[in-house]
């Protein structure tokens, strides 16, 4: 059997690749945590480590570029897992013929976002390959950080009754990249939501200590929520009418037959908080994005599954992404 693009969509087939190949081969305590950043225990200290590869096409898009994306990606993975990002390592893979000025512009956006997040780029590597061996530029970043506080977010702290908050309207990054890749003749594209989440998460963590957080990347909201329920003894009940989606994103999805619940974000996360804290936690998140919303609850019914109560008061399953939906988005 051959690898197809569906194996990279962040959904069901990616999960299958992990289950069949990587988890059996690389089984280790940190990896088995299955968090966005793995906990490493070094001489009595817990350190979070993450890594993320970026192959987005086009490498420059409305609202960012591959450099900004690559720093945000690792920084956000650390932050949602409960770590303050401290150091990044960066590997550049560049196709021969790439413009030096473009590379400098990419490095400049990395410098800017790293500075904004208080992260030091501490190690790097550069490879150049012959023309055609890759598409222009790919970047991999790996980051380490220390816990914001000793109480790390964890699957084991999730309980029925807790509330699920999304930090802003969903699907902008996916919609942005999709419209860049297709010549629709639209005057403007949707701007990507690509942004660092450290500040928002640090404040949320300190004030309301969410039991779990996950950033919405490939596969979007639906995939992130399914990753939370899969294999666990609770379900998620979502309320469709409360899920924030910008009218432009919805319009694009209508035209293209895409489902915004599966569209990638690069600067949004879900936080699970105690029910009695949902109002305060939401108002904190609204200071970053007015569109932040409480979208559902952890429930004892439907263990392992995500159920969506539709705008029409029907109920349906919200499954993981099964199909390739997008060109290279991250």
């Amino acid at each position, binding site marked *: 059997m051959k690898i197809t693009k569906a194996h990279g969509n962040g959904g069901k087939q990616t999960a299958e690749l992990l289950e069949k190949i990587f988890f059996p081969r690389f089984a280790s305590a940190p990896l088995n945590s299955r968090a966005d950043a793995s906990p490493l225990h070094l001489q009595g200290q817990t350190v979070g480590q993450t890594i993320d590869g970026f192959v987005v096409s086009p490498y420059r898009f409305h609202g960012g570029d591959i450099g900004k994306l690559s720093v945000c990606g690792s920084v956000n993975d650390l932050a949602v897992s409960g770590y303050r990002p401290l150091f990044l390592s960066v590997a550049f893979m560049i196709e021969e013929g790439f413009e030096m000025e473009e590379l400098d512009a990419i490095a400049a956006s990395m410098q800017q976002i790293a500075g904004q997040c208080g992260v030091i780029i501490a190690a790097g590597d550069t490879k150049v390959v012959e023309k055609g061996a890759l598409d222009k530029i790919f970047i991999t970043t790996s980051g380490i950080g220390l816990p914001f506080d000793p109480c790390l977010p964890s699957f084991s702290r999730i309980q029925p009754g807790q509330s699920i908050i999304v930090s802003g309207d969903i699907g902008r990054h996916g919609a942005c990249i999709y419209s860049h890749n297709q010549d629709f003749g639209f005057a403007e594209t949707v701007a990507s939501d690509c942004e660092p989440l450290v500040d928002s998460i640090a404040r949320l963590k300190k004030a309301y200590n969410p039991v779990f957080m996950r950033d919405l990347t490939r596969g979007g909201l639906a995939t992130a929520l399914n990753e939370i329920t899969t294999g666990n003894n609770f379900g998620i009940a979502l309320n469709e009418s409360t899920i924030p989606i910008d009218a432009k994103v919805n319009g694009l999805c209508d035209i293209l037959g895409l489902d915004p619940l599966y569209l990638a974000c690069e600067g949004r996360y879900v936080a699970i908080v105690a029910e009695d804290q949902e109002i305060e936690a939401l108002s904190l998140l609204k200071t970053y994005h007015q569109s932040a919303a409480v979208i559902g609850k952890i429930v004892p019914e439907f263990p392992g599954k995500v159920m969506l109560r539709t705008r029409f008061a*029907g109920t349906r399953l919200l499954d993981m992404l099964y199909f390739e939906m997008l060109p290279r988005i991250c």
Partner: protein
Amino acid sequence: MTDLVNQIKENVAKLQAPIRLMEVCGTHTAAIHRCGFPTLFKGEFEFLSGPGCPVCVTTPSYIDQLADLSNSIAVYTFGDMLRVPGNRTSLAESRAAGAKVNMMISPLEAVRRAAESSEPAIIAAVGFDTTAPAFALAVDYCVNNQIKNVYFLTELKTIEAPLKYLLNSAPAIDALVLPGNVAAVIGEQGFKFIENYRLPAVITGFSGTDILQALFILTASLLKNDTVIHNQYRRIVRAEGNQKAQKLINHYYEPCTSYFRGIGALAFSGLALRPEYAYLEYPVAYDVEQTGQALTSACQCGNVLMGRIKPPECPLFAVACRPDHPQGACMVSTEGSCAAYFRYGGGLP
């Protein structure tokens, strides 16, 4: 919204439930399930899917043909065709093995892209009445701009023949939901033949609200015993349809026999390029013997497409046949009824 739902439920209470309702088009199937109507109307409606999903009715041998060609010639196709299994392979698998398979957003865009290079290219022309004008426009572009390197592999279909075939088989259905996108092209007049079959039908749009209005109209019709073709989608669909599109189709295409997965050959169910434009058709010899054949003997796609069974009644459903390893096209297409049941949970436990 709640008012409309309540009115529908009041109507159903006066009828013999469940009302067996067939949505002809796969886009309706997906929308009905996405809106959660099978749970909202559990016991009140049974939603059965019809033969109107172009991906689902495309034959395995057409897929094989395209996949073979893509090894040497660039093929442009709509994305939902990529994972449909042929007898030997799918286009997605061919692409992974290095074949030249490109996704297109519209046939015209694909033709323009393909014409930029002088390499030969094939456009996979698959679709029903709704999509046919878009392919006719692409053919028109090739003719007017004397494009020499772009060919079509035409497998276009029209809805009338399979719908007649279905209704002639006297299926156990009480009412029909007709696709608004097809009607936008062929008009209300294009569905008039259904009145001969004495069951209510409504031309409908694809939003949840459109579908709820259709359910209300159909239940009211059943109460009155009327068998009129209603048009809920008046904001788009005219009685005479889109005559410019019809003219374009008739200019470039003529009716032909075509093959439906799980059903077989149906006369006058397809569109072929007229002889004077046939030079744009990529010349391939079809393996007619195989065209109507199901992929595995146990696959029930044909019965699902005819509304004889619901997807969970197929022995392969959710066991051997899942979206990540589909056995039949109804599980592959995002508009296939099996995929809709699997993905959205149907009526749920």
